[in-house]
């Protein structure tokens, strides 16, 4: 995809901003204004990253964290879409479950992490379960809203054109919910990482969260920061992948750049 010159210039400015922040950090810690013990040093952080990736030591940990994240993301999304479609289309079930859904959603679900650790042990499954509970509700609420928000004129029109209940679901409710699903997936990516990393903090033997916890235990702030950088980059990459799929599937939406016929 070709970028417009304005977009390219903006990107240059954005990278410039990053460079300025890192430079300030470098200058302040080298000059001793900020204590390197508490704030780390950019060159040492970079050295850590080179070391981790150079020796391959990071890959085992990163692999575990990414696996947990992806499993939580996919399973949470599927469950959220299924539940959202179901409740959106059956008002009785929605009314029945409404107070429970509100309660579970209001609860800070991170507190479930110890329970999951007890039930599923310290392996990946307790983290995946935690991630699922976080992802599920974001996706669920959006799909539920998307199904209920379908323009009634569109539903009536499809019915008059002869759509059966199943065809309404496939040709009307599902595509309508899909645009809502994608807006929720961006938030869900972050939540899947939260589930994995918080789960690893609370008890694990592998993963980037475990790595950060270890570093924190030995007051190695540079390693903590390096771990954060790795997680942030991974989350950005996953978010970017979601955007790519979104552009492809939601071509019909106004404002999509690659619509082309204008």
């Amino acid at each position, binding site marked *: 995809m070709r970028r417009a010159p304005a977009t390219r210039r903006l990107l240059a400015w954005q990278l410039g901003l990053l460079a300025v922040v890192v430079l300030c950090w470098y200058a302040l810690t080298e000059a001793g204004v900020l204590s390197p013990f508490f704030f780390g040093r950019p060159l040492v952080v970079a050295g850590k990253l080179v070391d981790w990736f150079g020796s391959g030591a990071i890959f085992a940990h990163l692999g575990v964290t990414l696996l947990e994240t992806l499993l939580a993301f996919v399973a949470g999304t599927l469950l959220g879409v299924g539940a959202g479609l179901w409740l959106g289309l059956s008002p009785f079930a929605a009314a029945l479950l409404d107070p429970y859904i509100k309660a579970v959603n209001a609860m800070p679900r991170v507190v479930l992490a110890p329970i999951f650790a007890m039930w599923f042990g310290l392996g990946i499954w307790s983290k995946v379960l935690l991630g699922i509970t976080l992802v599920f509700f974001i996706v669920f609420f959006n799909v539920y809203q998307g199904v209920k928000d379908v*323009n009634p*004129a*569109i539903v*009536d*029109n*499809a*019915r*008059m*054109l*002869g*759509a*059966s209940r199943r*065809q309404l679901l496939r*040709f*009307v409710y599902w*595509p*309508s919910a*899909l*645009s809502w699903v994608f807006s929720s997936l961006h938030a869900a990516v972050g939540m899947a990482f939260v589930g994995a990393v918080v789960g690893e903090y609370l008890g694990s033997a592998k993963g980037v969260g475990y790595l950060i916890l270890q570093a924190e235990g030995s007051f190695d702030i540079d390693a903590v920061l390096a771990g954060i950088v790795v997680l942030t980059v991974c989350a950005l990459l996953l978010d970017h992948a979601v955007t790519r799929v979104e552009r492809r599937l*939601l*071509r*019909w*939406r*106004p404002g999509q750049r690659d*619509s082309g*016929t*204008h």
Partner: protein
Amino acid sequence: MPAVELRGVTVSFAGADGGHTALRDVDLEVAPGEFLCIVGPTGCGKSTLLNVVAGLVTPDAGEVRIAGAPLAGLNRAAGYLFQADALLPWASARDNVAAGLVFRGVARDEARRRAEDWLARVGLAGCGERYPHQLSGGMKKRVALAQTLVCDPKILLMDEPFSALDVQTRSLMENELLSLWAADRKSVIFITHDLEEAIALGDRVVVMSAGPGSRPLASHAIDLPRPRDVTEARLAPRFLELQRELWHSLRDEVRKRQRATEEA
């Protein structure tokens, strides 16, 4: 046998204030191949009337017969052109037109071929790949018209379909509607709040009373010659006479009604 027959149809809607009666004791007949226009003030239950004929609303009392058979559930013989934009925003113009055929079990390739054919008939050849948001208001109405007509309904229900269009586009669409209708003479119920539009298009104009509890007040045959050009027809002396007659009956009914409410 009338294509559509309503006997004593009453429709009420429940509401917080005890609800209201949209239609009271409506009798109406539409002959096969007749172009019937229904005029009435805003909020007089015109759309409800159409929804009853479509089977989207079940009357609380009275009877609906389609070609002699009582209507149960959706009216499968009817095509409905809504006032609001009701195209599938996520489907291209071609897939929108093909939708009705796909729902009815026509193979997708065949449905698309027939859709392209209909797009050409409504003057949108080559626009099949576009999505609704890439079409103007008039083009969307054309797609909606093709979407309804491709299913070849016996009865065509139209709810102020052109009210959102500018004057030129509107006359253009009205003329195209008339020529499409002339080709195979479906029964049409066309709803509008515009008396001129009703006279220009219809074989007969039914005037509805103001709501709540509205019903047809008067029925006027429109004896303008066909085929008609709506812009030309509006300039004919007979058009002005008809317009005057209809206004008079409308005014008399409104006065009668006012007196009745004052006495009550």
